[in-house]
């Protein structure tokens, strides 16, 4: 434990860790892999443990230097290095990614941000991932955002869709590239709908005049607002309406209406989406995606995401 964070000491420890990891393999050595810096802000011990588990899972697809910032008020700042290793299928040499876990209270975030600058893997993209609601509520997080080429938030962690959206839009206006895992969770729904209209024999989508989005809960959750905005951008002449429906909060069904009839996507049993109407009646599997799957999808997109940006308006 140290009272402050010393980047040079951490980098030295990281090198020592690599020497030790290589020595432990009995001569085979390990392959050090890194394609980006992933700064993860976890808001307590449990959050940090879950983040580490997700990091371990996504490292296979996106080997990164993980800098996990664990917020913990009243504690001195501290840092420790770690590595994540795995043996590729049929391989003989382990592939390892490196990481640093830093503990700090939000009031020290300005200092943490300064320390993170030299700790980033040089010349590679940096992604800041805020797992919890703190990013939406604590101004201290602003200190970390300038480090990022992309900021990943999860608006499902807070209540109040309009406030969350307003915050995300404000970050975008400040020039940050933003992703929201709540939008990522909609990929399955969006893909199923898009597939219906991939069919050349399907009617032209611009004949759709109205869209009804049914959601659980009293007010439209952010996922419903996203979906409505996405549909509205794709079909500017269609009127979008939100309705409440029975069931868990979240998206329950989407109905596109045209003179030819209705096309509906609705939550069905067994983790499926039911597609009905306009000569279609089938169910398609839509298994729940864990945090690692959502992160894998977002980390694939480090450039501009024009569809999401249009949805944000």
């Amino acid at each position, binding site marked *: 434990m140290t009272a402050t964070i010393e980047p040079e000491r951490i980098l030295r420890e990281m090198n020592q860790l690599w020497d030790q990891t290589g020595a432990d393999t009995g001569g085979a050595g390990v392959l050090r892999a890194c394609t980006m810096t992933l700064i993860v802000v976890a808001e307590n011990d449990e959050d940090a443990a879950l983040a580490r588990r997700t990091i371990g899972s996504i490292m296979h697809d996106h*080997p990164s230097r993980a800098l996990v910032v664990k917020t913990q008020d009243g504690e001195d700042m501290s840092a420790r290095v770690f590595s994540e290793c795995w043996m590729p299928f049929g391989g003989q040499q382990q*592939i390892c990614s490196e990481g640093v876990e830093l503990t700090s209270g939000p009031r020290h975030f300005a200092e943490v941000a300064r320390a993170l600058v030299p700790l980033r893997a040089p010349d590679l993209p940096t992604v800041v991932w805020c797992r919890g609601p703190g990013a939406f509520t604590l101004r201290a997080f602003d200190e970390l955002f300038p480090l990022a080429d992309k900021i990943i938030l999860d608006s499902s962690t807070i209540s109040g869709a309009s406030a969350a959206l307003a915050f995300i839009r404000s970050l975008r206006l400040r020039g940050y590239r933003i992703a929201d895992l709540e939008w990522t969770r909609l990929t399955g729904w969006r893909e199923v709908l898009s597939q219906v209209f991939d069919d050349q024999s399907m009617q032209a989508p611009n004949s759709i005049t109205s869209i009804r989005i049914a959601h659980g809960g009293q007010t439209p959750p952010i996922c419903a607002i996203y979906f409505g905005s996405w549909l509205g951008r794709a079909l500017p002449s269609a009127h979008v309406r939100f309705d409440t429906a029975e069931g868990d909060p979240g998206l329950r069904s989407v109905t596109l209406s045209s003179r030819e009839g209705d096309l509906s996507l609705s939550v069905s049993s067994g983790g499926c989406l039911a597609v009905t109407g306009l000569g279609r009646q089938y169910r398609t599997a839509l298994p729940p995606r864990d945090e690692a799957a959502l992160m894998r999808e977002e980390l694939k997109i480090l450039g501009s995401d024009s569809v999401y940006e249009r949805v944000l308006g």
Partner: protein
Amino acid sequence: MPDDHNPFADPLRFERRVPECAMVIFGANGDLTKRKLLPALYRLAYDRRLPASFAIIGNSRTDLGDDEFRNNMRDAVQKFSEDTAFDPDLWSRFAKNIYYIAGDMNDPSMYQAIGKRIGEIERHNVLFYLSTQPSYYGAVAEQIGAAGLNEAGPGAWRRIVVEKPFGHDLESARALNQRLQAVFPENEIYRIDHYLGKETVQNILAFRFGNGIFEPLWNRRYINQVQITAAESIGVEGRGGYYQEAGALRDMIQNHLLQVLATVAMEPAAVFEPDAVRDERAKLLRSIKIMQPEQVPLYAVPGQYDGFREEKGVDPGSNTDTFAAATFFIENWRWAGVPFFVRTGKKLPKRSTEIAIQYNSAPLSLFASGDGDLPKRPNLLILRIQPEEGISLRFVSKQPGAGMHVRPVSMDFKYGASFGGRSPSAYETLLIDAMIGDATLYTRQDMVEASWRVVEPILHAWQSPNFRVPLYEPGTWGPPEAEKMLERQGRHWRNA
């Protein structure tokens, strides 16, 4: 393409979608179907890349029912899927749409039966896959046409996939093409060269045209030579009968390695679209200098491993090349004068496919070399296709310690380390491409003809009655003549 009319498309996030379709496999009891096609299709189903209704109709002469065929295919998937767990539930859903029609490929009634089955299962889009002996390609296409199976309804498609070899020389390639094009338009003919489907071959384009630093050095001013090697450590492994007719030049260089050469040397396409990319590949292949008969002994070397004639199915007097090496020159402004050395063979020291791009040496050697041989160790860029896919750059570095002694070191990028996820097999990539109508990685007729033109003078010379193929010891890098070919040009093979 779907994106053109679909306002909901999101190509950054959505997988390219395969429309509802059926695949008719001719030669469905053969090795290719069992080892490559079914494992690839099963993996695509495992990854949910295929529509739930995707159907397979297998055909061969063997008298089987649907269930027996399904069982055979299940065994093949279990045996040959290298990195995919077998999921019995998934298989039972997948197998429900597998059918089998026994019959002779020359029998018109068999095609009527296939047409009837396609109608019964209500598939409008059909991919015909010729996994048969090449001699059947033309006849099967004609029978498909005679039965009207090539005619797609409005908004639907009918495509044919042809495996190499596309003919056994230029004339037969043209004749085959005429027969195929009499039934299918060129844009529905997919000539598969699985090398182009390999992730690492596709990565050559990303490496060249996605980075700013390499392309300026990618020309005759900086590059001294290019060596393309596709070595196998095994022999013909029971394929003696086929291999005896083909030989290394036809089996590897005419198709796979010339396509790789074209990918390394082509100009950038204006857009990354199928015909734009294929135009550039074709243009490059047409730029390869055709050898005159008297040049063949200087620029091409065959070899046969000792013991080939004792292989099962091989004529004891066989003159087939199990090794082939050739020097090609590309006659354009970028590459004039740069030799492209290409070689392939069986029973070589190790299995390895790689492209070695050797740069010119530094104009002046200022430093003492640790191994005393620095001028012979210029910068080398290695693009490894298999195994250990990756890229290495060799350069010199100062040895630690007193004085200024330098020695070569290697900077390595391993594909599997930076992208830990599983890479799709070439057949997975190419099958999906054919189903969605993307022909970028498929060979076009003009490319086939251009590559036959390149190898034909060599074939003619090696097939002349008095020509004897030199032997080489298994486990060596081919006959000594291959090394001499390079020595005459002041170069050496890279036998790392």
